[in-house]
């Protein structure tokens, strides 16, 4: 199945793009998508303990299973205000 990955702030800079499309096996989780990204962009590993994620613009957890067409966002620590 195909999912869209959204990256923000420094993660976007590290990847060189803010939006990626990835083919993943059926019933993949957010964690599996993240692990693939860490393989692709090793500098992402530093965010393992400080990262948040969202699925279809709702906060989610890493074990969350995905469906075809989902949008997964990986969010470094926030700094609004």
């Amino acid at each position, binding site marked *: 199945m195909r999912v869209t990955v*959204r990256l*923000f*702030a*420094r993660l*976007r*800079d590290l990847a060189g793009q803010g939006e990626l499309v990835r083919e993943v096996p059926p019933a993949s989780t957010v964690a599996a998508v993240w692990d693939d990204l860490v393989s692709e962009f090793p500098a992402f590993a530093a965010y393992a303990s*400080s*990262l*948040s994620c*969202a699925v279809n*613009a*709702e*906060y989610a957890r890493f074990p969350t299973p995905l469906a075809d067409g989902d949008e997964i*966002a990986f*969010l*470094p*620590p*926030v*700094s*609004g*205000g």
Partner: protein
Amino acid sequence: MTPRTGLTEHALDVAGLARLVEGPAHGAVVTFVGLVRDHNQGRRVTHLVYEAYEPLAVKALDRIVTEAAAQWPSVQLAVHHRTGRMAIGEASVAIAAASPHRADAFAASRYAIERIKQIVPIWKHEFFEGGDAWIEGATADPENADAREQALRTACG
């Protein structure tokens, strides 16, 4: 009518935000405005660029308004955050809280800014003399009860 929460690339209208929440039963309206500062961590800041995950940021702002309404039922709250490039001295965030008595309006506005810094997916890209850096603050987790409790304690002084 302007919504109570929102993101905008344009200058924030603090007086307009206050008018959104004011009513005849209110004896107080507190406004908070966050400004772009010319220094941070010993660096001379030249400007900031704010990036947001917009649909989730608006939902997070709505959540903060809902949380504040549960805590201070008499308070009317509005929160707008700016995105994009901002010069020193410009307003990046504006909060207006109106209530019958001032204590609740002060507390709710303080709570709102503390929660913004905890859970709203917005990031500051700081440009300073000699370089630039993404500012990374809190790991966003709206369900984190400790963080919420900390914001409440700060708000209630």
